[in-house]
């Protein structure tokens, strides 16, 4: 946990509590992308020992916050909602960046940060149990369907990439059809599950049964991204599951580098 050494680098808070467990690779990924990352236990936010406003980006890592008991992400979200929701809202309004992967996406949904069509941080969607009713750990193909959000700016539209997934609750369900339409109309879908040829098909290429094969969603203004796959686990291309077959692309890095570039330009 280094901090304050590189004063002019974008500062990123990787939030943690018992059960979150991607914080180390998230920390390393942000650092590798040129940010000054720090792992912050949410207790320190709750007790006001640390403040979100010190940071330029927040990362909600994957894992099983509080065991994922009740519902994935629910306990972490309800703690944050009860204590620092106002700070998070200000953070979003300031145009700073927030990203959540896997359990982090679940937390963003439970916090109402995604999709937040209504603008008042109500819960408008859920990530329900995979239709296969089992934990799925494997690599999936994804199509980039939006590259205006800072995390995705280094990709081409319709680019097919590969990322690992590992989750039990990833089935994206919006509250109603209208919301889903709003999400599409506002170009908020960031990534979709596809087959190797880029076609949208069902299981197993869509590992959880998400509507419209949605794998990741950006906020309307683009500064919040939630996704089920794990870019932080493949920052290093040699952790991409099929690299020995000569498929050596740096997909994971591009998420973080895009974000860091954006922060460097903007702040």
């Amino acid at each position, binding site marked *: 946990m280094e901090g304050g050494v590189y004063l002019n680098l974008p500062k990123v808070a990787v939030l943690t509590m018992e059960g979150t467990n991607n914080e180390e690779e998230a920390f390393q990924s942000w650092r590798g992308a040129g940010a000054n990352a720090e792992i912050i236990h949410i207790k320190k936010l709750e007790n006001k020992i640390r403040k979100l406003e010190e940071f330029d980006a927040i990362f909600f890592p994957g894992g099983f916050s509080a065991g994922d008991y*009740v*519902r994935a992400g*629910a*306990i972490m979200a309800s703690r944050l909602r009860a204590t620092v929701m106002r700070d998070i809202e200000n953070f979003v309004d300031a145009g700073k960046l927030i990203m959540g992967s896997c359990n982090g996406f679940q937390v963003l949904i439970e916090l109402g940060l995604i999709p937040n069509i209504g603008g008042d941080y109500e819960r*408008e*969607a859920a990530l*329900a*149990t995979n*239709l296969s009713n089992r934990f799925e750990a494997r690599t999936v193909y994804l199509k980039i369907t939006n590259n205006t959000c800072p995390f995705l700016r280094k990709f081409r539209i319709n680019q097919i990439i590969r990322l690992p997934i590992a989750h039990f609750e990833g089935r994206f369900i919006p*509250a109603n059809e209208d919301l889903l339409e709003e999400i599409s109309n506002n170009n908020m879908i960031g990534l979709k599950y596809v087959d190797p040829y880029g076609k949208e098909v069902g299981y197993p290429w869509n590992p959880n049964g998400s509507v419209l094969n949605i794998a990741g969603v950006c906020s309307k203004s683009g500064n919040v991204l939630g996704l089920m796959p794990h870019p932080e686990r493949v920052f290093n291309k040699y952790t991409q599951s099929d690299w020995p077959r000569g498929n050596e692309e740096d997909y994971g890095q591009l998420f973080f580098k895009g974000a860091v570039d954006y922060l460097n330009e903007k702040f």
Partner: protein
Amino acid sequence: MKINIIVTLKDNVEDAEGQSVLKALHLLGYDEVSNVRTGKVYYIEMKGNDLSKGYEFCDKLLANPVINKCKVERDD
């Protein structure tokens, strides 16, 4: 006071666990079973007498209104 909070999926949300239990029961030969849905119960012991607290717990923690329904009952 003791209260039970029962959280289930809304009827229009597919219940993956229910489906897989149904499948397993059929595999065990119980063809008479036609549907299974699942839910979660929280047995809560607390001071006071205000059942509405239960709904607060649902709202703040135990349920996501997009997919869940909540029932709160006193356990005597």
